[in-house]
């Protein structure tokens, strides 16, 4: 035929693709974080934005440098470094020295991701590795909070709702509404539960995130803290306050749901969420720290391969 001038392409079936790519998903996660970033800037001012930008920039720079040193291809375009930098920043206090944010970001990328071989190979959630390193190295900077912009409190350092909950100081807590919308001190991404839920629901709706993880994580924390609250006589609002405080919302929707470090089976994800909820509740209620999310996620990341191995689905045609 005259119109065939070149050799025909002989690729293997399937010849169609859904057009769904990792880049698109990462972009959507970034979009989903915008309400929370906006809330952070609203409550903490320009400094919040600075911390976020510095963190993202150092994440991108260290990923680029690592890939050059390892003689591997440039992976900045897949958006995961930007996301790691952004998510790490959301776990940091607004007053953190910028050099500490840089350090945390670099550790997240280098130790949390690139040494394992890059995207897809890491065992731990990179942002939480960065946060854990910072928490262990600079506990004071990581637990120094500032008031929200326009708040009437004038103390330079103060306790977050999470710390107050742990101390049982129920009368000093802000109202549940304040905790829900974010008018509370805390890390950049820990304040507005409303913004995070909106972002999280968007991700579930778009199919980037399996709803089972946040559902089982938040559900387990709710049930366990409700039980605890009932025993201690803390009132009906207690479990809701637990849900809205600390890094739980951002952890449940944005960090625990990270594809690479969570199980690939359906039952595995439910178990993963249950384990997360259990660990977070135990650490918060009985452990030495006030925040359990970071370590729960890291511990469950370690258990992901074994969860995958024991929750394999049934093959079509095999016995039920």
């Amino acid at each position, binding site marked *: *035929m005259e*119109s*065939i*001038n*070149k*050799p*025909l*392409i*002989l*690729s*293997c*079936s*399937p*010849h*169609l*693709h*859904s057009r*769904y*790519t*990792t880049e*698109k*998903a990462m972009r959507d996660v970034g979009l989903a974080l915008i309400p929370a970033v906006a809330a952070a800037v609203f409550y903490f001012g320009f400094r919040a934005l600075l911390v976020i930008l510095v963190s993202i920039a150092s994440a991108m720079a260290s990923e680029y440098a690592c890939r050059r040193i390892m003689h591997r291809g440039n992976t900045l375009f*897949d958006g995961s470094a930007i996301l790691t930098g952004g998510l790490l920043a959301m776990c940091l206090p607004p007053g953190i020295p910028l050099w500490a944010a840089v350090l945390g970001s670099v550790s997240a990328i280098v130790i949390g991701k690139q040494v394992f071989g*890059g*995207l*897809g*190979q890491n065992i731990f959630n990179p942002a939480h590795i960065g946060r854990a390193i910072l928490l262990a190295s600079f506990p004071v900077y990581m637990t120094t909070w500032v008031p929200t912009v326009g708040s009437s409190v004038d103390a330079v350092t103060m306790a977050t709702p999470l710390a107050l909950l742990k101390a049982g100081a129920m009368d000093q807590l802000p109202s549940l509404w304040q905790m829900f919308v974010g008018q509370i001190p805390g890390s950049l991404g820990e304040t507005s539960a409303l913004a995070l839920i909106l972002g999280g629901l968007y991700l579930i709706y778009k199919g980037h995130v*399996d709803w089972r993880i946040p559902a089982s994580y938040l559900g387990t924390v709710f049930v366990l803290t409700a039980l605890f609250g009932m025993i201690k006589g803390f009132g009906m609002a207690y479990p809701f306050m637990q849900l809205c405080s600390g890094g739980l919302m951002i952890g449940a929707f944005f960090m625990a749901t990270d*594809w*690479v*470090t*969570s199980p*690939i*089976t*359906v039952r595995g994800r439910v178990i993963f969420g249950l384990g997360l909820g259990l660990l977070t509740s135990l650490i918060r209620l009985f452990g030495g720290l006030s925040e359990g999310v970071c370590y729960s996620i890291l511990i469950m990341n370690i258990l992901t391969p074994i969860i995958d191995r024991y929750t*394999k*689905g*049934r*093959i*079509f*045609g*095999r016995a039920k």
Partner: protein
Amino acid sequence: MNYEKRTFSGGTHIQDFKEFTNSLETQEAKAPAKVYIPMSMHIGAPSKPLVAVGDLVKMGQKIGESQGFVSVPAHASVSGKVIGFKQLPVPNGRMADCVVIENDFKDEWLEGLIQPEQNPQALDAKEIGARVLEAGIVGMGGATFPSHVKYAPSKEGKKADHIILNGIECEPFLTADHRIMLERPERIIAGLKYMMKLADCPKGVIAIEENKMDAFELMIRLTEQDSTIETIVCKEKYPQGSEKQLINAVTGREVPPGGLPMDVHVIVNNVGTAAAVADAVEFRRPLIDRIVTLNGNGIVRPMNYRVRIGTLYKDLIEENGEVIGDIVKVISGGPMMGFAVYTMEIPVMKGTSGILVFNEESQVLKREEEGPCVRCARCVDACPMGLEPTTIVKAAKRRDWAKTKACDVTSCIECGSCAYVCPSMIPLVHYIRLAKQYVTSKDGNGAVNPFLV
């Protein structure tokens, strides 16, 4: 009216691209000057040529004899003169021996054929089976399994309680089955009844996907008086048309790994095959043509054609269609499981449901570089067989064939759902095919298994 829509677990939703041809009535393609009838367009032993160069043949004349039980005869799709034999490639890349007939354009049927049977209802199963074999009927959904074998009494004495006609056609672009359901529904129903008689089966089901509601409503109307035939609709999801998934959606049963539909007392056939059976039983008409959808952005006027077996793709397009742009890819079949072919000199065969021609502009062609697996598990969710493609492919990349076998790689139906959804563009099916080759080879070192190519 609200109809219950059946479905199966797993699978994925894909754009169906059927709007170009699903409302276009099938046109008779202009018969070509030469036809190349392959001696093997079916599973089983190739037919043995019965003619010699110079022989004059009539349309429908047997020109190839079936060899053994699992084999069917081949027939001339035009009347004319045998001018030679030629080896031509078939879509999977293998070569087939073909009888070349020069068309005299008279379309003279062999005497004795196309005679309406006075009393087809009086024919018994044996006679029906003989006519199905004589007509060279094979599964027209693509697998081309000899139909008389499918309906032969099973050695273990298994009996079918359902015969399911597959009117799903889940592959994008293809509308051949949709058109035959709209244009010849009575033949399909008649064919189903003969099949039920052949298999001594009490119940027939016609299953149609919900993107063909016009065909569904027509079939429902035509079968509502018959209590032995049920017409059902299935949710649009790929790969509903896969035999195992269809049986599961219609009956809830699961064909065991390595098993056949008869193991769960079901027989499945394409709607086109049913129409061909009716033609064979009632008119002794051999299978010499079929509906083919010609589409793709390289074709100016996409169309459904009734094409003579043995027409070269090149001749079909040159005589009947018009090409636009620089052609870079041609697919035989559908885009999810069809074969990309390297030449247009391939004959249309009994299982050719579509020819898709793409030029450089096509969106269908864009493919990015393979990236690392990000464990999103979309492939796991999409697999209709419950497999973990990512695990299998990671093992295959390490050449750990034993692990792929342990992950049930041989249960893969190669539907392509996993590769379709993978955000890292990993060619999962390609690696799975490689693993299957090693797992099924006798010595485990990858000697090519002819049934996998």
